[in-house]
């Protein structure tokens, strides 16, 4: 019985890991393409989810600002938009965001050190966080794009018949796994086997040299940030469905970092494998060891686990070898 409990924890851990991976993927993409550690990834997920809800519910953007400035009372347009259009529209907005980021920020920071770019993305995170709130309000929003949620009955009965113990698996998690797998496959194919993918990796290595061979940094950046924006939207949808669209959504970035570390900042498959290991590890640890040391170990355990891996492989499991030459 204990074994079955443990395997249920394990399966749930794996699924939680997939949810982390969804966020981690966005980081990897941008890191791979520009050597930028995009701190704003979590906020982008929040922003995307907020926008999606706002569009679907027909909220008036900047309602609060308009009301405060003009003393009027606008709130909703009075219509609702089907999820599929909402998602498409939000994806477009994320492309717009990518263009704006390139034009207003990245363009001016070509060739700067990574930490400077990192800092700029922090500025961006703050800006986006404020913008999201001003646009759509800071209340908790319920997001429902039609993804099923709750325990899957069929798995429960199936496992019950088979093992005599019904596994509780959230249907949302199953969906997340499927979507993540598809995303990873698509992204790996893109970055390894296409011309744009190669250009993207070239940009990450050396901005100047990339420019000198005619790769347009602007194009690559817009492309990558758009993809990352799309990944953020997917992550936002999954997490937003799970626990509502609200500020805390931006903090899931912190859960994605150990995943990145473990999988390697530059590896798309790494993001998924890292997620699985972290999800599984932290859940099992909390389940078995947590009660002995007072619990709430998940936050640090993920990092410590990743740290241990790094001591043996400083570039993460699948990261590119760090080139050390003189």
């Amino acid at each position, binding site marked *: 019985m204990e074994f079955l409990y443990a395997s249920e924890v394990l399966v749930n851990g794996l699924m939680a890991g997939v949810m982390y991976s969804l966020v981690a993927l966005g980081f990897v993409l941008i890191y791979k393409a520009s050597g930028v550690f995009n701190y704003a990834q979590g906020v982008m997920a929040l922003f995307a989810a907020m926008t999606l809800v706002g569009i679907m519910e027909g909220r008036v953007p900047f309602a609060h600002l308009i009301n405060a400035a003009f003393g009027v009372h606008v709130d909703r347009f009075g219509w609702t938009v089907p999820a599929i259009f909402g998602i498409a529209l939000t994806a477009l907005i994320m492309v717009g965001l990518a263009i704006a980021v390139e034009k207003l920020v990245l363009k001016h920071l*070509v060739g700067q050190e990574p930490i400077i770019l990192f800092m700029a993305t922090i500025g961006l995170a703050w800006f986006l966080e404020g913008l999201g709130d001003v646009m759509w309000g800071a209340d908790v929003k319920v997001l429902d794009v039609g993804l099923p949620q709750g325990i899957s009955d069929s798995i429960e009965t199936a496992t019950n018949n088979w093992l005599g113990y019904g596994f509780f698996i959230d249907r949302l998690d199953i969906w997340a796994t499927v979507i993540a797998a598809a995303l990873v496959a698509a992204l790996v194919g893109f970055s390894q086997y296409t*011309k744009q993918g190669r*250009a993207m990796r*070239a940009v990450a*290595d050396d901005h100047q040299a990339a420019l*000198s061979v005619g*790769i347009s*940094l602007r194009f690559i950046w817009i492309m990558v940030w758009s993809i990352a924006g799309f990944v953020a939207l997917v992550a936002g949808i999954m997490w937003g469905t799970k626990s509502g669209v609200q500020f805390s959504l931006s903090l899931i970035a912190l859960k994605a970092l150990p995943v990145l570390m473990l999988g390697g900042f530059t590896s798309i498959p790494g993001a998924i494998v890292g997620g699985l290991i972290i999800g599984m590890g932290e859940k099992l640890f909390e389940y078995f060891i947590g009660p002995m040391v007072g619990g709430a170990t998940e936050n640090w355990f993920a990092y410590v686990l990743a740290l241990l891996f790094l001591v043996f492989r400083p570039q993460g499991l699948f990261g590119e070898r760090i*080139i050390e*030459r003189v």
Partner: protein
Amino acid sequence: MPDATQDPLLEVNNIEVIYNHVILVLKGVSLSVPKGGITALLGGNGAGKTTTLKAISNLLQSERGEVTKGQITYRGAPVQGMDPAALVKQGVIQVMEGRHCFEHLTVEENLLTGAYTRSDGRAAIARDLEMVYSYFPRLKERRKSQAGYTSGGEQQMCAMGRALMSRPETILLDEPSMGLAPQLVEQIFEIVKAVNEGEGVTFLLAEQNTNVALRYAHHGYILESGRVVMDGPAEALRENPDVKEFYLGMSEQGRKSFRDVRSYRRRKRWLA
């Protein structure tokens, strides 16, 4: 042989470059590069050769440098403010000083990025890849290794090959011979010559190795402290006594041993 006055493809007119808003590096440089020619840009360390080339290919911005005066035109049209990528599409590509290979990409992937702007199909690109490998067989051997782990010379070949992959009209070469074995230096210049003659590619090359450069170039400019101090056809420069002494290391009796230049001497400056 093409000469400077006829049909200038690339013209630099009295440009001034400032880094970081305060460091004035080029103080009025003018050049003219004829179509189909090999033009050499010579000068000591820090003279401003690299800066000139970067000004042409619009790569200064990312180093916080800017062209504050003067004009650069390519085929008669000004290029300032143009996206470097757009310039490559027009056929101007730069091989940067210090190699700048994409470390994490393999040698072959590096070469393929050179063909980024091309849209003439895979077959043509594959053909050119073979051509580059035939120029640099060593690259073929190392095609699958990450460029970051290849030796200095291999990286230099890789950078050259990458530029060739874009089928350029004009190549700006920054110190192609640096760090190459003597045999290879000759080879590289032979390749330059072959590409120049065979495919009509125009070259502007910055070089420290004056000796070789003047042997292959048609025309030369000598830069010192951000100014052009002398220019002329290559043969003429080769015969100039000052050039001979300071750039070719020849005294009246021919080449002297490096062991003998022990006494301190102050070099003559064209401009005080």
